[in-house]
């Protein structure tokens, strides 16, 4: 098992960490803003942010004297790759299906793939 995926699953299996991710959807925040109203101590938030960083779900950078935390756009790159592969596979199957019966202009309601219903 890929440790990067394992780390992501671990990181997401926690309600506070999922709350932190939701809070970052509108843009980067300092830890004080992230912790606001969450029923968790500030050191605990920092610990959660460390886990999220290690799982590459969150990035951080210095902004003057404080640190800003942001969602890592890499997570979306991977989602995009997932759909890229999915649609390549699905459209190839669609093309095979369409061209398997090239002469049929008036499609039937029933065909062999539904015979097991």
């Amino acid at each position, binding site marked *: *098992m*890929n440790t990067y*995926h394992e780390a*992501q*699953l*671990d*990181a*997401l*299996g*926690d*309600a506070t960490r*999922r709350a932190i*991710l*939701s809070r*970052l*959807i509108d*843009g*980067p925040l300092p830890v004080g803003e992230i912790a606001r109203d969450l029923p968790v101590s500030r050191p605990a938030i920092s610990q959660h942010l460390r886990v999220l960083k290690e*799982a590459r*779900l969150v990035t951080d*950078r210095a*902004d003057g004297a404080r640190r800003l935390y*942001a*969602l*890592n*756009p890499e*997570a*979306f*790159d*991977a*989602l*995009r790759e*997932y*759909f*890229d*592969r*999915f*649609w*390549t*596979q*699905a*459209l*190839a*199957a*669609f*093309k*095979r*299906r*369409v*061209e398997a019966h*090239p002469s*049929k*202009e008036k*499609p039937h309601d029933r*065909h062999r*793939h*539904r015979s*097991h*219903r």
Partner: protein
Amino acid sequence: MTVTDTDRTVDAVRKTITVQTSPQRAFHVFTAEYDSWWPRSHHIGKSPMKRAIIEGRAGGRCYTEQEDGTDCDWGSVLVWDPPHRLVIAWQIDGKWQFEPDLAKSSEVEVRFTAEPGGRTRVDLEHRHLDRHGVDAAAIRTAIDSPNGWGGLLQMFVDRVEGR
């Protein structure tokens, strides 16, 4: 504060193929007969998928019938313009559950254009992927590993629910 790295725009996935048939028939097979080509492994039901249905009208449901008798919605038809154009909301969240909120759903647009020689160009665009949210994105990524998503998904569910 100037923020330069908040641009979370995710490029749409775009695919084009050409098929040897008319736009009418391509549209029909893509929608009314999508059960005949959709990858059987791709559904969100708890039992094996029996049949896949796209209801042919704006507002129509996209769902699968499962062997345990349940229906699993995964999307809805936003634009129904046969045989030219189809837009479907992709309403699956990061936990492989139906997402009723269109604002948290991505969109799949499919266009069918006649080409010389009785062929049809099919342009597919899957856009607004960022609406699924980064946690959904990460879950998808984790699930879509070479080890197969089933085991990983179960592992994720166990971890989330086992607390």
